């Protein structure tokens, strides 16, 4: 379960151009639920995802994951939490350049001490699921946007996360790949994964349990 209490994020606190990206947000996301985050551009969706995904810290407020207040966690504890529980799918993929797909997929497993052979086997099975069995050794530069997104999804799944956070996952990919992604996320939901997606794509409404709409940093 993910829970947020009075979450605020203020950018440029000590400058003239302060931006209140998230303001007094409270919510609870039950385990095994599919949540959609909607709202116009600049409404604070990405900031909120980054905070609940532990990639950024709130200015004030608390976030709890499985009952633990993660806002007080140290940097190492947050890394450990991300490694064990969270998979991130970024809007702009964030793959490591010039690194083969299989290595990009298994990048999170390297510091876990998993041997190369095992990592390769795991990456291959995930890339097969993504329909990229013939792109295992291709670097991101040699892949289309859709293929890159699928590699990024495989990377998000490689550590069998309990939570998947996706930020506009279909904004840079074609219709066909979007449909595939939707199916993958739907399957994951049925397997017990908690999914939070920020999107404008209305097709997600069909599988979502709940939709939060944001405007100017607040829930509506």
């Amino acid at each position: 379960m993910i829970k947020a209490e009075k979450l605020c994020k203020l950018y440029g606190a000590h400058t003239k151009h302060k931006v209140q990206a998230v303001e007094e947000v409270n919510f609870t996301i039950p385990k095994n639920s599919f949540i959609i985050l909607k709202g116009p551009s600049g409404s604070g969706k990405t900031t909120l995802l980054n905070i609940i995904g532990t990639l950024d810290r709130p200015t004030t407020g608390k976030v709890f994951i499985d009952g633990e207040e993660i806002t007080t966690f140290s940097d190492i504890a947050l890394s450990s939490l991300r490694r064990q529980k969270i998979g991130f799918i970024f809007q702009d993929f964030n793959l490591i350049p010039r690194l083969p797909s299989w290595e990009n997929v298994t990048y999170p497993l390297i510091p876990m001490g998993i041997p190369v052979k095992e990592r390769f086997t795991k990456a291959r099975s995930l890339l097969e699921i993504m329909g990229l069995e013939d792109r295992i050794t291709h670097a991101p530069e040699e892949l289309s946007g859709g293929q890159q997104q699928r590699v990024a999804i495989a990377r998000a799944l490689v550590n069998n996360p309990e939570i998947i956070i996706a930020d506009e996952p279909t904004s840079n990919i074609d219709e066909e790949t979007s449909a595939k992604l939707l199916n993958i996320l739907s399957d994951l939901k049925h397997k017990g994964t908690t999914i939070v997606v920020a999107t404008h794509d209305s097709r997600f409404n069909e599988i979502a349990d709940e939709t939060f709409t944001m405007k100017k940093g607040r829930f509506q």
Partner: protein
Amino acid sequence: MNKHINLLLLAAENLLRHRTKTIVVCLCVIAILSPFITAISISEGIREQSLASVEEGGDLYLTFDEFGRNTSVPLKYLEEIRTIFGVKKAVPRIIGRAYFQNKLVVIVGINKEDIPDSVSCISGRMFENPNEVIIGNELARHFHLRIGDQFSMRGQQRKVFTAAGVFTPDSGIWGASLLFMSFKDAGELFGKPEVATDIQIYSIPGHNSEIATDLYSILMNEPYRLQDKQIIELFVKKGFLLKEGIFTALYVVAFALGIPAILVASGFGLSDRRKEIGIMKATGWNTLEVLELITFEQLLISLLGATIAILLSIFWIRVFNGIFIGQFFIAEITLLPKFTVPSKFLPLPFLLSFFFALLLTMVGSIYSSWRASSVSPVVAMK
């Protein structure tokens, strides 16, 4: 353990992935370390040869003192010195310089039975008759001298010498311009038959202080100077330390210019790296793991750079005979010496080079990497 192996393998892969950066940093490391290793190796080589020569020489050196400098010692005391208890052998020498055509050569006048064992003829024989000399192999090569050739020194045409043999001493640098002749011939050549430039005294171990006391009673009223082997060794070592020190000081100046280059180079592509570090953090890596990876990268690049620098130094000495650097340690030699410049590669400079390269590359990368990995992944990925 597997984690560290994974990080090491990834570090090696990253060096290949960031090929341009790897090459630039490696070149910087090589450019800085290679001349330094070459210089230290040459210095060590010459020092070793010098100390070997000192080791082979007498236990005490007797000269006279004039204006605070060594000056010639009259031979009238020689027989008395030889009778001192503890003296095994007293060997008078004349060491001087004279022009052979247009080249200044070092002439050593010494009786043939006292010539160091390291000097052996590679052709011809040792001088036996008056006016016979043996010539250093490099000198013989320079003047195309053959056994039996006759010549005289410039400004002293009355004395005609015959080349009896060509020798190769253990030390190449001394052999370049050295000429051995009998003590008597040298005295006649320089017009000083009654003096020696020094007398080498070989003593029974543990008798040096008694010998010094007896010498005092013999030379009480003379301005003499007595030096033992340890002092000579100390002078040699000090001399090389000074030269190495001057070289290092000059090098540090060059370094001051090189360091910014290497720092820029090792931080080269930092914006790419910053984003990568952000991705690593976002996918569960912690700061220590990121820094371990960066350290492995610098370790590998330093190892590679230092190894190439060492190989290049060996090549520089073996193939190019220490060109440019040899001159700094050996006086009066040409840019490309005709003799083999001595060298000695010790493990310590190798290790120091490696650690120095590591330090340089680490300074250039670890702080920026730490900065990138200690901010939130979102900021680093921007």
